[in-house]
């Protein structure tokens, strides 16, 4: 790091409501702080007096529910919000302003409007309805022109940006908060003496591949009378159980949707974590999280998983959709604790490349590219109201 930067980050969605963008902003802000930078995050907030709110957060009032893109979204718009962002920009004396999801009609767009100077934007969504964007493009063009550097969190998000708004972006995928996954107590009674396989994710989404795993369990569960299957994720549990042979049902445990904390504990409760996805993953975030938890991994051989598992060095791979192959590989892993431990160690090492600290360093490189030798973020004189 050359010198500590003063970074102003804008989060467009309510801070105390769970969401992907909020989580991203939090992880990024904390990683930047850890690297020694000064960070201030302005965000809509339901309870600004909440003691649990991080010291780097500046609440910008409550977001208002309003119809947008065919559903009701909670957004912060209007002159009052704009005035709050303007004050924050004026007092913050930031070297760089980092707005998230500026194409959504909320705080980030307002920040682009009221400020000028070094500005970076991160695009998260892969398909905002382009119709609305096209209708409003004229309104947004002058505001978007101020963005000196754009970041996309996925190839799909980058493509959306190119197609709908013009301009290009560098790709910096989400990081994994490795430390949050590293240590946890297994769930009570797990993994158990007979061994356990595990699955995380939506149970009724075919591409997550639970079906493949259930078919494999039909084989391997019969061979090993003590083996259990732990499944955590939202979806219709009864319907899923019906797909299991009645003789094996009492060894399949469905937790339903679990908290972030229990998800980590579940990852520590498995002898083998299975990722039987049949496709549709742009980045193997689920696998990367399992790697951070040090779970021995058996994943389907799709591009995203092979890449994140370092070609198979940090986790075993099986042929996509092949339940028999999955059963065979899982059996071998269950019988070989030494190999499981070696895979877990390799996984913990390999996942460091996806840690938020690494991501934050990449982001700082983008900041440095848009920061000129002098001049900082200030209030734009032409953001007139009226």
């Amino acid at each position: 790091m050359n010198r500590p930067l003063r970074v102003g980050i804008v989060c467009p969605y309510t801070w105390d409501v769970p969401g992907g963008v909020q989580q991203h902003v939090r992880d990024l802000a904390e990683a930047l702080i850890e690297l020694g930078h000064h960070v201030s995050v302005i965000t809509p907030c339901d309870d600004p007096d909440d003691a649990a709110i991080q010291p780097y957060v500046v609440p910008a009032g409550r977001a208002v529910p309003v119809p947008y893109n065919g559903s009701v979204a909670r957004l912060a718009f209007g002159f009052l919000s704009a005035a709050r962002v303007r004050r924050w920009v004026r007092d913050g004396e930031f070297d760089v302003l980092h707005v998230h999801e500026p194409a959504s009609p909320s705080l980030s767009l307002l920040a682009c409007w009221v400020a000028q100077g070094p500005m970076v934007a991160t695009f998260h969504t892969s398909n905002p309805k382009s119709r609305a964007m096209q209708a409003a493009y004229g309104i947004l063009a002058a505001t978007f022109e101020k963005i000196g550097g754009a970041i996309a969190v996925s190839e799909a998000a980058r493509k959306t940006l190119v197609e709908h708004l013009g301009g290009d972006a560098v790709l910096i995928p989400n990081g994994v908060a490795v430390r949050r996954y590293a240590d946890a107590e297994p769930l009570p009674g797990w993994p158990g003496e007979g061994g356990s396989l595990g699955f995380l994710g939506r149970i009724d989404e075919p591409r997550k591949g639970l079906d493949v795993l259930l078919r494999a369990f039909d084989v391997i569960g019969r061979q090993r009378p003590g083996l259990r299957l732990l499944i955590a994720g939202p979806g219709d549990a009864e319907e899923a159980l019906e797909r299991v042979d009645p003789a094996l049902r009492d060894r399949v445990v469905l937790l339903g949707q679990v908290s972030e904390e229990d998800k980590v504990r579940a990852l520590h409760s498995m002898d083998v974590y299975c990722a039987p996805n049949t496709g549709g993953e742009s980045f193997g975030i689920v696998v990367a999280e399992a790697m951070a938890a040090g779970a021995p991994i058996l994943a389907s051989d799709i591009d995203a998983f092979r890449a994140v598992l370092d070609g198979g060095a940090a986790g075993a791979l099986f042929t996509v959709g092949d339940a028999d192959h999955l059963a065979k590989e899982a059996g071998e892993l269950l019988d070989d604790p030494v190999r499981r431990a070696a895979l877990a160690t390799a996984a913990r090492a390999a996942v460091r490349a996806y840690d938020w600290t690494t991501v934050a360093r990449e982001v700082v490189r983008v900041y440095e590219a848009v920061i000129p030798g002098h001049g900082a973020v200030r209030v734009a004189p032409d953001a007139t109201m009226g």
Partner: protein
Amino acid sequence: MGDTFGWVALSVAIVVLIGFYVSWRATRLDRLHTRYETAWAALDAALLRRSAVALDLAGSRYLDPATSLLLAAAAHEANIAGPDRRELAESDLSRALRAAIDQPDLDGRPDADDRFTDVRAAARGVLIARRFYNDAVRVTLVQRGRWLPRVLHLAGSAPLPEFFEIDDAPPDRLE
């Protein structure tokens, strides 16, 4: 002989009278359908006018860009919504207009009320046109529900009119 003639004459007279009556009922129904169609055309025009005015306001740079984007998106959705989504999209536009115009910090802004003259007129236009339209639908449905038009298919192939139910409450500031 004279008797038979009398009966025939009476029957013909009755048939002719019934014919007149049925034809009158059919004409009445036809007139209702015309009224219904005119009312729909008026409502459609009022809705299109309202979304055009909302788009104008969004593009005027009087509001902040986030509010403008919300408004433009809602107006656009209302414009392109197919028949099955139209009521939802128009209700959303009403809500977006309220969110934009009733925002707290607008008070005391210069010429705040002059800016919304067109929106007020357009919102009022929708309110009126929708009331008349739904009234036309109600009367037409009552007539078509009677036994004679049903049995004789007096409505022909005209589709059954439907009520147009939306949230069209205008912004408080414009009341």
